[in-house]
């Protein structure tokens, strides 16, 4: 693997994409979509995160070992949050 510098253009395009996504998510929040508002907001945030991690944080060029560290944290967070929700989300089903 190499540590060659990325081009300025690539960073600028990434930034422009992030700004478009920001405009999109703010605009979507004003439209009433019910539960889809959540889905839209979190999808846009996830895409923004992937762009930042892949281009700005150089996951594009780093070792797969580093990928593992990056993914491990996110997977663990999802598992722990899901386990918490198995309790708090389903409690109302009983009454």
């Amino acid at each position, binding site marked *: 693997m190499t540590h060659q510098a990325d081009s300025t253009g690539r960073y600028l395009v990434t930034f422009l994409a992030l700004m478009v996504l920001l405009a999109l998510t703010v605009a979507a929040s004003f439209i009433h979509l019910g539960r889809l508002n959540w889905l839209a907001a979190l999808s846009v945030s996830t895409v923004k995160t992937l762009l930042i991690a892949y281009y700005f944080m150089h996951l594009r060029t780093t070792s797969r*070992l580093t990928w593992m560290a990056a993914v491990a944290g996110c997977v663990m967070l999802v598992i722990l949050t899901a386990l918490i929700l198995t309790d708090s989300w389903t409690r109302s089903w009983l009454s």
Partner: protein
Amino acid sequence: MAHRKSLNDAPERLPLSESRALAHQFDDSLQQRDAATFGFWIFLTTEIMFFGGLFAGYVVYRNIYTDAFAEASRHLDIFWGTVNTAVLLFSSLTMALAVQSAQLGKQMRLVALLASTFLLGSVFLVIKFSEYAEKFREHLVPGISFALSGPHAAHAQIFFVLYFVMTGLHALHMIVGLVLIAVLIVMALTDSFSPEYHTPVETIGLYWHFVDVVWVFLFPILYLVDRSS
């Protein structure tokens, strides 16, 4: 493990530019940089867990008090929230370009971009703290001065506890980041970095982008999700 013919030939094998910054346990500067990057990502993983607890708390309480959270969320200023998100994304761009300058060995460009990042981070904090001041004036600070009328007042307080703790912890990370960037600027001005050695710029860059990512999630869950309901 590097193979050595004799104990005293090791130092001569390194180019001069590398030997200055290369710790003795690494074979070369590339291996050293990979180790630093990997180690820093491990640290970021603990940071994900650190913020993750608060996000989980938000999810649980929002699930229970959906209406109260929706009402409380509408008291936040979406305009300044959006401006701040743009400011922070822009600071991530200048930071990414600062790292690129360090990789290319462009010293003055590196200093200018680090200074821009510092400035943008400061602008973010000024906007954030003026939002806090606004919340004090509107009596939306839980515990200290909370006076919201309506049926959801008590549970809306939980939203504002989460708002202040989450954005406060994020702001604390920003302040730490600003101090680190100031150190980088001094290091860059004293010629501490070269295309072979710029690990501090790279890792603090990772830290800055991570703090940006945290905000990318804080912004929609606090300011946006219940705007239209």
